[in-house]
């Protein structure tokens, strides 16, 4: 049983490297300033290929969440029940994540703060309810 770790590509490697260094980053278009995640080679708004990795404030809010009561992968069986949450960063991009303190009560629109955690040697962008 192997843990389903991210498989960085040349495009996404800087994202994972930055997390390892304690920074959450997203892509911002040099032409139209649109901001996005997950990593892609062209701006999905204006289709330009010129963009920069930009550091996020680490602040965001809950859009929605689910609680798994069934493990679709062996590695998660012992964590049941566990949450997967959709967070929108203050800067706009959204990401799938886990809330580290779900007992505080996950709810839509609640503010959250970045809490980077180690998972099998990889830095993941998790969040705490604030």
């Amino acid at each position, binding site marked *: 049983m192997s843990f389903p770790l991210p498989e960085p590509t040349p495009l996404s490697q800087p994202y994972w490297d930055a997390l390892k260094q304690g920074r959450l980053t997203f892509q911002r278009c040099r032409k139209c300033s649109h901001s996005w995640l997950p990593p892609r080679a062209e701006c999905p708004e204006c289709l330009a290929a010129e963009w920069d990795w930009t550091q996020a404030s680490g602040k965001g809010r809950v859009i929605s969440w689910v609680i798994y009561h069934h493990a679709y*992968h062996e590695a998660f069986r012992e964590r049941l029940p566990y949450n997967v949450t959709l967070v929108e960063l203050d800067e706009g991009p959204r990401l799938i994540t886990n809330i580290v303190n779900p007992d505080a009560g996950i709810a839509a629109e609640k503010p959250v703060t970045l809490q980077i955690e180690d998972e099998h040697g990889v830095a993941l962008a998790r969040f705490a309810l604030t």
Partner: protein
Amino acid sequence: MRGKYVIAGIGHTKFGRLPGRGTVSMNVEACRNALADAGIEKSAVDALFVKVPTSKYSSMYGQTLAEAMRLQPKVGGVWDQGGATNISMISFACMAIDAGQCEVAIVCLADDPKTGTRQAYEKAWGDDGAYGWFSVAAGYGLTMQRHMAEYGTKPEQFGEIAVAVRNHGANNPHAALRVPLTLDKYMESPFIIEPLRRDDICLVSDGAAAVVVMSETRARELGVKAPVKILGFGQGQTSYDVPLRPVLTETMAKASAQTAFKMAGLAPKDIDIAQIYDCYTIAVMMTLEDYGFCKKGEGGKWVEGGRVAAGGELPINTSGGLLSETGMPGLQLVMEGVRQMRGTSVNQVKDAETCVVSNQGGIMTTHSTLILGH
């Protein structure tokens, strides 16, 4: 094009477990049954539109199937919009016939996730697997949770949909699951991915279905006994990834329905029956809203009191849908729409003259709408 094209025949295999059959064999059986139902010879067919089997992709599958039926279609191939494919292919068939490209089309699908692989539905979503983000169901759960948070929709209101559809299926001898459901039993059913309960989730089934599409004129020439008119159709697609949708609780089902209603010259109030793609109860709730049967966010209240059950104002999924008849993605809903318009459903709605059918794929990613009527 309103009323100019018809569904001339419908056919299907058994639903449930069909080990070892394979999708080609199941497709051929469904096509054979659809041709028999239309009362026409295979030689009349000059177009073959096939939904790609989601569970096990195969290159140029449309031609594999054509070969298995010794057909050389003028227009053919596979289309991939997930579950929305079927109605989209029916509309493409109408357009191709209208453009003089062909005359008689078979539209079909087969899949065997029950006894084959269902990996397509349970896999991780890319690198987000590290957060435990797995399965198609989870995307529906995420959408359902947002609907509940934003509009105060209650679990019991999703239960109303499950109960209505399951009880319709219990009455259908072809249904894979014939166990009726009560609201209490629904509430007791275990969470799979909260807020999704087991009974919010459709069946996993093997099976195939096919329909024959042609012009009303051609149907008359060929002596088709019970053609059912196509009054309107439409489509709409949104982002592949649920998290990237601008608004989680809205889909392009709205655009799809608007196109179809405009073509048919009808409005939701003119519809007698609806066959709504019920892979998950949240999909039904949002489709009813997006179609305009009620306002966005009011679906929960709207379905209360048996409104969508047999005998209600708008009976839905009268043969049991994906929750009870078969988990097959979509064509069973079209076939039941045809039976209702013919007057041959096991849960026949008296004097019904119009039926809207929805198909959708992915996680409310793709959508298509069909309006049938007299």
